[in-house]
């Protein structure tokens, strides 16, 4: 078929005009020049004494980054890379609205990567914030939800050298730990998943300031539904990791059996996997947790020799260490009555019907659950050296191998 379109020049001109005017008439409603915005990288949310919400925002300081006008060399070191501002309002959006009125350039939230809840706010319930963060199109569900026991403003303005931008640095801190324990990376989406799961117990990473005033990962905060209940220290956090499932690259430190001079044995768990078995009786729920781990030796006590016996001994020690750690963590969770170890969810996955009967009384049942642990650590390699240097030398100058002969 030959195209029947009879093009006349006038028609072409008109079509071009129509297309152009279609674009030009409405104007640019959504234009937002990159110069005219404050890039918010982190939001801190806390509560004032009169139960108002104070929002701390961390903006990129455009003057500090190398720009075209100063050639990228001078004066960038002296200025703060981020600007931290705080506003108070009756709700989060109210406080953020105040930023618009009090800071030149509008707030740009789409690059926000952290939401840092103050401990007070978290304890009084983060449900006030959740809908805002879920609904607002600017926020992405991979931003981190964190809790801090320290003043939010301090954490957000603390230096995280060598990373110039505070929020990026904190995010990296959390991500580094999350290679060991995945649940530490408490992205909004994971928090929401846990919040909506049968167990209803979100976990968020806990960021605090260390003695030098730098942010550091202090453990995790555990929530019963939307209220923060308690925090787990880094050690207890590991226990929670084994309760929950897979972990990687966790170091276990155990004291020396003999004259410990502070060093101790360190075993790095290369990877572990936890199996969960629930035996539902009508009253008494008993749970069985099986941890399988592979490990390598990172450090041995001085003068110790690595032989079959030692290896077996080490793996038993590591296993019992894991069991102890799990027991401690679970004890704490049961005391707090928080199912952060996701038992509820896992029971639901195993037998939805049983869970449906169980769920109304779950909070009272959870502390009574009897749990059996069985950890099995298999040491798969000894790293670069087979024995400690100390074990091979004797005062006579002969090596142990010679002595043995």
């Amino acid at each position, binding site marked *: *078929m030959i195209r029947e*379109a009879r093009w006349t020049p006038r028609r072409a001109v008109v*079509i071009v005009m*129509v*297309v152009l005017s*279609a*674009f030009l008439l*409405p104007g640019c*409603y*959504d234009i937002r020049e990159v110069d005219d915005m404050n890039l918010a990288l982190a939001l801190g949310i806390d509560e004032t004494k009169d139960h108002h919400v104070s929002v701390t925002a961390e903006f990129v300081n455009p003057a500090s980054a190398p720009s075209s006008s100063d050639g990228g060399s001078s004066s960038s070191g002296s200025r703060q890379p981020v600007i931290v501002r705080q506003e108070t309002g009756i709700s989060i959006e109210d406080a953020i609205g105040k930023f618009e009125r009090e800071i030149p350039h509008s707030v740009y939230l789409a690059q926000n990567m952290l939401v840092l809840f103050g401990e007070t706010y978290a304890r009084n319930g983060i449900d006030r914030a959740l809908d805002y963060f*879920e609904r607002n*199109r600017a926020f*992405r*569900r*991979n931003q981190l939800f964190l809790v801090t026991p320290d003043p939010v403003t301090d954490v957000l303005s603390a230096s995280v050298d060598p990373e110039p931008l505070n929020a*990026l640095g904190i995010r990296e801190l959390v991500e580094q730990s999350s290679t060991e324990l995945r649940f530490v990376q408490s*992205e909004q*989406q994971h928090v*929401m*998943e846990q919040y*909506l*799961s049968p167990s209803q117990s979100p976990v968020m990473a806990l960021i605090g300031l260390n003695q030098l005033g730098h942010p550091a990962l202090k453990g995790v905060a555990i929530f019963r539904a939307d209220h923060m209940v308690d925090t787990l220290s880094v050690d207890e956090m590991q226990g929670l990791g084994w309760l929950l499932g897979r972990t990687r690259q966790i170091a276990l430190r155990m004291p020396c059996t003999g004259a410990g001079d502070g060093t101790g044995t360190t075993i790095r768990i290369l990877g572990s996997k936890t199996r969960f078995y629930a035996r539902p009786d009508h009253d008494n729920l008993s749970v069985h947790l099986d941890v399988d781990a592979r490990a390598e030796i990172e450090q041995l006590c001085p003068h110790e020799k690595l032989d079959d016996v030692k290896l077996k001994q080490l793996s038993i020690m590591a296993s019992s260490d894991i069991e102890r750690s799990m027991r401690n963590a679970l004890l704490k969770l049961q005391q707090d009555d928080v199912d952060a170890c996701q038992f509820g*969810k896992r029971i*639901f*996955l195993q037998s*939805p019907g049983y869970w449906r009967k169980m769920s109304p009384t779950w909070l009272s049942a959870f502390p009574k659950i009897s749990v059996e642990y069985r950890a099995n650590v298999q040491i798969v390699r000894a790293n670069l050296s087979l024995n400690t240097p100390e074990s091979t030398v004797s005062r006579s100058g002969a090596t142990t191998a010679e002595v043995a002969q």
Partner: protein
Amino acid sequence: MSDIRISRTQLITALTWCVVGTGIVAIPTAIAQFTVRDAWISTMLFSVGGVMVALVTAVFTRFFPKRSLTHALIDAFGPWVGRAFAIWFLAGLYITNCTVVREAEVFVGTTILPKTPEYVLGAFALVAVVYAVYMGIEVVMRDAEFITPLVMLIAPILFVLSMQHMDIHEVLPVLADGWTPVLRGGVVSILVYALEMIIVLQFSPFVHRSQSVASDIFVATIVITVVLTTVTILTVGVVGSSTQYLSYPVLEAIRTIRVGRFLERMDTLYVIAVITTIFIKMAVCHYAWCTGMKDVFRLSSHRVTVFPGALLVWGGANVLFADADDVQQFIFYTGPAYAVCTLLLMPMLAVFAHKVRRNS
């Protein structure tokens, strides 16, 4: 005009994009009203609707080869009754088209251009649609063919990248709540989105071999079912229970993508892919409507109604529905029965009347 030929590939791609375009936006949300964990079973039910359409098409093309649906209605019922039925069908097409435009407006307005008035967005899109429809069905089909490789390039990247956040436990346990929510969830995808494929009957005169239309629909059904099911599993796996309250769960699944510091924020890519496929859907619907108008009002060309029709669709999209929720309510609670009466019953009625007439 009978020189125009649509190849089978073109028909299948166009059909696929027609359903997937808005389906990928609306179907997960629709199903999540009833079930989240078993949503993927509901999307699998799409194939039931697809097979239904394929059967109807097979019957229709046997009795009316080289006839569009509106033409067939007029042939079967005579000029006046037939025209009334055809107008009923065209009204259905018009409302469908309005729904699609409004959905697209709301989608873009919510996701990337919040300050732009929705009707402006609709006008933008319709400029492109009008141009394509004006140039004829071949161009629309080739558009569909052209974008296919592009979408096929984007989609797997997005899916693979969002897989990293997927947790298969969100989809388990299967059928924990029984079949009822699954079936309820399937209603919209079977009765609204699958039945939309009947639109093909408007093009059947142009298809290369009209006998193969039914099998093309069948192939398209399989493709669509696979795509939708994959998307749904992925979405539920990534987004989890939040699917129930999120407006655009698939978008949220894609927004979670983050690979290192350099690869993140791919959602606009997704929005762009969706708009592109919705563009195909709008063009196909509008073309079907225009050819219908041509049959009913005995116009010299489908081009007569391209421009004013698009204007009417644009007006209707903003006027028929008071708000975004209204669109959803319409699709969920009016759409199924309306689609059955308009899209499924019309061709069957035409065939029936044709048979009765021939026998008498």
